[in-house]
């Protein structure tokens, strides 16, 4: 299995704040990696750096063997990476179909082909009944589905999902988890930022934990849950000590 994404020595400061510090991880092809950590840990910044929305101060991001640092986001997307945004950014005035078609146009030249590919993506996420609805009229969860469909329409090999499950009820979470599973079975490599433990456990075998911009743990779900550093980051040192004593 080849490496889909190799992140090395990633660093980014904003003024006095070191948002991302010496972060490193590797994602194999078709793997699903979960990137977790308390709020403000630098997860979304890491996404922004990988996709080219910010330029890292130092470090390298290599996707499918090509260096991504220095590329503009649209080039990164052309190389096979797509992302969803934490707060959905639909093209509000366009319909669902038009939104996804805009994504499909990256790989398809003509409107007819783009429309077909768009319909496939819309169908995949379960939004077919809403095809002609204006994006701004969608519910939050449908907007998330739209984000995903639009990203899928660019035919990515690696998908960055930023908190797609935030604010969903348990039934919706199950649907989202199933969707992620479907994507993985299609061969996609996925990096998912999430807070919901049970969702993470269900989709990811490989977890990276960030806190204050630094990687504090990496491993399987079981290893992460028992890691005192992780416990300390989320719950404070009191819990970490007791966990350490238990192991």
């Amino acid at each position, binding site marked *: 299995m080849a490496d889909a994404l190799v992140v090395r020595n990633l660093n980014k400061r904003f003024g006095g704040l070191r948002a991302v510090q010496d972060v490193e991880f590797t994602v194999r092809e078709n793997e699903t990696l979960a990137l977790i950590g308390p709020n403000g840990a630098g997860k979304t910044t890491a996404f922004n750096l990988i996709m080219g929305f910010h330029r890292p101060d130092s470090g390298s991001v290599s996707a499918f063997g090509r260096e991504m640092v220095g590329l503009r986001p*649209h*080039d990164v997307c052309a190389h096979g990476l797509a992302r969803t945004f934490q707060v959905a950014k639909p093209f509000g005035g*366009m319909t669902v179909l038009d939104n996804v*078609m805009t994504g499909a*146009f990256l790989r398809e030249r003509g*409107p007819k082909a783009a429309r077909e590919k768009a319909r496939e993506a819309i169908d995949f996420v379960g939004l077919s009944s809403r095809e002609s609805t204006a994006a701004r009229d969608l519910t939050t969860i449908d907007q998330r589905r739209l984000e995903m469909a639009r990203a899928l329409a660019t035919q990515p090999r690696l998908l960055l999902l930023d908190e797609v499950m935030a604010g969903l009820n348990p039934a919706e979470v199950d649907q989202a988890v199933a969707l992620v599973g479907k994507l993985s079975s299609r061969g996609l490599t996925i990096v998912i930022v999430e807070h919901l433990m049970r969702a993470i456990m269900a989709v990811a075998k490989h977890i990276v934990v960030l806190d204050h911009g630094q990687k504090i743990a990496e491993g399987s779900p079981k290893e992460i849950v028992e890691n005192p550093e992780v416990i300390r980051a989320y719950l404070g040192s009191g819990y970490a000590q007791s966990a350490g004593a238990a192991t």
Partner: protein
Amino acid sequence: MRLRGRGGIALGVGIAVMAVLPLVVKNAFAVDICIRILLFAFIGTAWNLLGGYAKQLSLGHAAFFGLGAYTSTLLQIDFGISPWIGMAAGGVVGMLASLPIGWLCFRLRGPYFAIATIATAQVLMLIFLKFRDFAWGAEGTTIPNLGNAPLMMQFDGKAPYYYIVLCLLALALAITAWVERSRIGYYLVAIGEDEDAAEAIGIDVPRVKRNIYMISSFLTALAGTFYTQYIYFIDPQTAFNFSVSIEAALVSIVGGIGTLWGPLIGTILLETTSALLQSWLGNSIGGVQLTVYSLILMAVILWKPTGIMGYVSELTRRRRGKAAGS
């Protein structure tokens, strides 16, 4: 916007009327108004590509208008080259000028983009005002009247001018209709909605902006040549006049920003209002026309920012919704 049924008939009638108008209407003043309507609808449609679809709200399109006007006039008076060729050359000059202007202005968003575009048009005006050596300075020049000289774009009577500007408008509308249905159209609207999201799905935002700016400026420059030939006069104040920039944006906003027919509808409304005002009040009181325009603009902004065409779409959607029993 797809036009079916009643809309299609209206369009057909409209085209037929526009096609025969100067043959039927003999009143020169009325034909002149129609020419102005078509001209500003043309400029507005050109502006709309950039400002309406991609929401890059330029208030400096007069820059291209003026560059087109001066290019063809200079070629004509200094080298005897026909304004037909001069018009094309002016278009190219405008298009090329959009590259550095775009490079400068597109680094800014929102109001600062608008201010920068205003500034570039003003700088050009000031340059042409100051340097009389190459372009007659502040006094400008008249175009020597050659009587009826079609090869030099001069005609007796208004009808030929009417048909020229009608063709220009048709060209701009055709380009807009094609853009709307094609990849670049979707990309423009995406950029207008959310540039970051557009980048994230692989849209080369700067390149798309550059390309549409080139088309928009090319067309606007053609208008400059036409106008100069029509009024037989050019000077910096006229060629780079801020009101050209304003009206280009205004007719599109009032008529329906980002729609195919918006600029034409907006122009018809605003220019007929202006003509009526002129006939009631004469030209004695300065500022009346723009006062009325600004009131209309404010009304549109506050109550129906999507303009007339936006309102029409809303009505059709509501009617369809009721019919479908939703």
